[in-house]
């Protein structure tokens, strides 16, 4: 059991400390301290060597920290061009595993965004047939006197149609020709009429 006198002394001491703290103007005290002088006496490196940075970082919630960061003003202050000038793209590509990138890419989604009709319209079919074996394949699969005669008759008819139309346009002194195709077919007709590259 504790000595009653010691207990009393403890209580008196605590009371005295309370009174001193209450009476003390901490701000004034801090103002009188030369912090620079105090810090100059501290070896920060020595302190840092004792800090387990990994343990500190483990306790940091980086996501929460990043949530509080407004990246846009930060990026506004960054001049990307000199940064990119310093990047050796070739070295970067040498290190990239393109196969892995392609494996992770959703090719179907990419293709869904491609206008295949537009791509096909830009293909120079004449050159394609001339420079590949495609011509021979088509000739063997679709050749025939009937289709040849039909193609010839139709193309000649269209040619004559255009000939007549040109003369009618001249006789009527039309400056602007009519629409080439009905409205619902206009996009298709225009795609067909696109000059090949």
């Amino acid at each position, binding site marked *: 059991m504790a000595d009653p006198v010691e207990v009393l002394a403890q209580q008196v001491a605590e009371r005295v400390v309370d009174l001193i703290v209450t009476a003390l103007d901490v701000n004034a005290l801090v103002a009188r301290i030369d912090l620079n002088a105090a810090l100059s006496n501290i070896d920060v490196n020595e302190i840092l060597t004792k800090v387990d940075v990994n343990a500190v970082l483990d306790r940091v919630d980086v996501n929460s920290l990043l949530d509080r960061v407004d990246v846009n003003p930060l990026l506004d202050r960054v001049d990307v061009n000199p940064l990119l000038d310093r990047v050796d793209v070739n070295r970067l590509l040498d290190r990239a595993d393109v196969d892995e990138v392609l494996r992770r890419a959703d090719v179907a989604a990419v293709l869904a965004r491609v206008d295949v009709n537009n791509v096909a319209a830009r293909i*120079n079919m004449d050159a394609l047939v001339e420079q590949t074996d495609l011509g021979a394949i088509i000739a063997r699969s679709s050749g025939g006197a009937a289709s*040849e005669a039909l193609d010839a008759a139709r193309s000649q008819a*269209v040619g004559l149609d255009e000939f007549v139309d040109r003369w009618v346009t001249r006789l009527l002194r039309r400056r602007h020709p009519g629409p080439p195709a009905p409205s*619902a077919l206009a996009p298709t*007709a225009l795609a*067909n*009429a696109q000059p090949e590259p």
Partner: protein
Amino acid sequence: MTARSRPPGWVSAQGHYAGAVSRFVAYALDLAASTALFTLGLAATAFAVQTITGHPVSWSKSDVVIAVIFACWQFFYFGYSWAASGKTFGMAILGVRVVRADGSDLDPWRGFLRALVFPLSFLFFGLGFLGILVQREHRALHDLIAGTAVIYAWDARAARLRFLAREAEVGASGVPQDPVGSGHAVELPGQAP
């Protein structure tokens, strides 16, 4: 890739309004086909009646009944063809098709309506057909009434490919042979020459 020569204009004609020559030739083919079928039908009927009854049957061109049947047959021939597929035999040969005025597919009833009002274009010395020549959308009187138009429907690009393929096949012999790819220079309405 570079083109050896510019493809002829008809390659891009698919979907465009069909012109007078294609339509006239298609109609001539249809008239010949439908008349031939009708004549065959009459001959078959005469043969059947003669076989059954033993009396010879002869048809006269001036017979009103025959004329009425012929008119009905013509209406059926054109009306059914347009209602079913938008094209008759002759139109299929020439690669043209009847569509609605906006280019969408033809409703069956509109096909029959077109066949019903088709004779009106013959009135006044065929004045109704003048629209095919002078109207900006090449629509005749019966087209305007039925709300239809006639367009090129044949796959000209495939035809061009077939021509190039044939040319590639005979290229080694150096014998140019196909009139299709002769570069028949035609400019389409709205296209730069």
